[in-house]
């Protein structure tokens, strides 16, 4: 997954040649020093919002944002394929060991980013 910090490096590559510039060939207006190719893959994560704290699961949960612990915040998937922040879900299962979206018994399928 691409890190947010890469966003500043994203941009259009300089156009090659072209243009009716009066500059001499050797005097380029700019040169490309660094190009960060950012590959992204996702399962439509853009609408994957944690139904408990209503923050996207790929971002830190509301609690971790408030406590500045963004780095420790991971995602948990249940066997029902619903995903939440692990922080949010572990608070809820103490009350009721069911997925709050589909009401099935909550069984962790995996935890990760």
């Amino acid at each position, binding site marked *: 997954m*691409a890190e*947010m910090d890469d*966003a500043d490096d*994203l941009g259009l590559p300089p156009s090659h040649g072209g243009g009716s510039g009066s500059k001499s060939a050797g005097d380029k207006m700019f040169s490309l020093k660094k190009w960060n190719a950012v590959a*992204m893959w*996702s399962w*439509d*994560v*853009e609408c994957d919002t944690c*139904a*408990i*704290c*209503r923050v*996207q699961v790929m*971002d830190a949960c*509301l*609690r971790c*944002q*408030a406590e*500045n612990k963004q780095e420790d915040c991971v995602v948990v998937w249940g066997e029902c394929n619903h995903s939440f922040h692990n922080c*949010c879900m572990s*608070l*809820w299962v103490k*009350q*009721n060991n*069911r997925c*709050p*979206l589909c*009401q099935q018994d909550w069984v962790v399928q995996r935890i990760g980013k």
Partner: protein
Amino acid sequence: MLTLASKLKRDDGVKSGRSSNTAPESTRRVSIRDRLLVKEVAELEANLPSTCKVNFPDVNKLHYFQLTVTPDEGYYQGGKFQFEIDVPEAYNMVPPRVKCLTRIWHPNITETGEICLSLLREHSIDGTGWAPTRTLKDVVWGLNSLFTDLLNFDDPLNIEAAEHHLRDKEDFRTKVQDFIKRYGR
């Protein structure tokens, strides 16, 4: 797929989140409940049933408000029923606490204001109780429906009222309207 625009927007969100975290401890101690409520109250006010009004006596306390329901059909038509909604600090792991302030003759509300509405139940064995996926909008729509769709004589909290209805529907209606004249206008 994420587009660059949405990615940058998210990045912005994260950045502003970070900068607010550098604020002094005292000012950034906004509870999780209050953060949730900012969005939920806006959502509630944008989707209020036509028979409902909400009133926040203190705009700085989104966790405490009153709801007035004026049913436009059924036994309770013509009445005006006030509820008090208090959202505890542990929200949204626990449901809001709701009390009916208007004395009422109702199978699911006692004369002292206790309410039996499944989504307000903190511990439920089936899936009908509180869940953190629910919001204030669901609570208000639920309370509003206690006068119509969710009016339930089969699983009453005020057993006397439910039995009254079973015995004599017209007399039940008369008593409901009598309560409205006395307490609920």
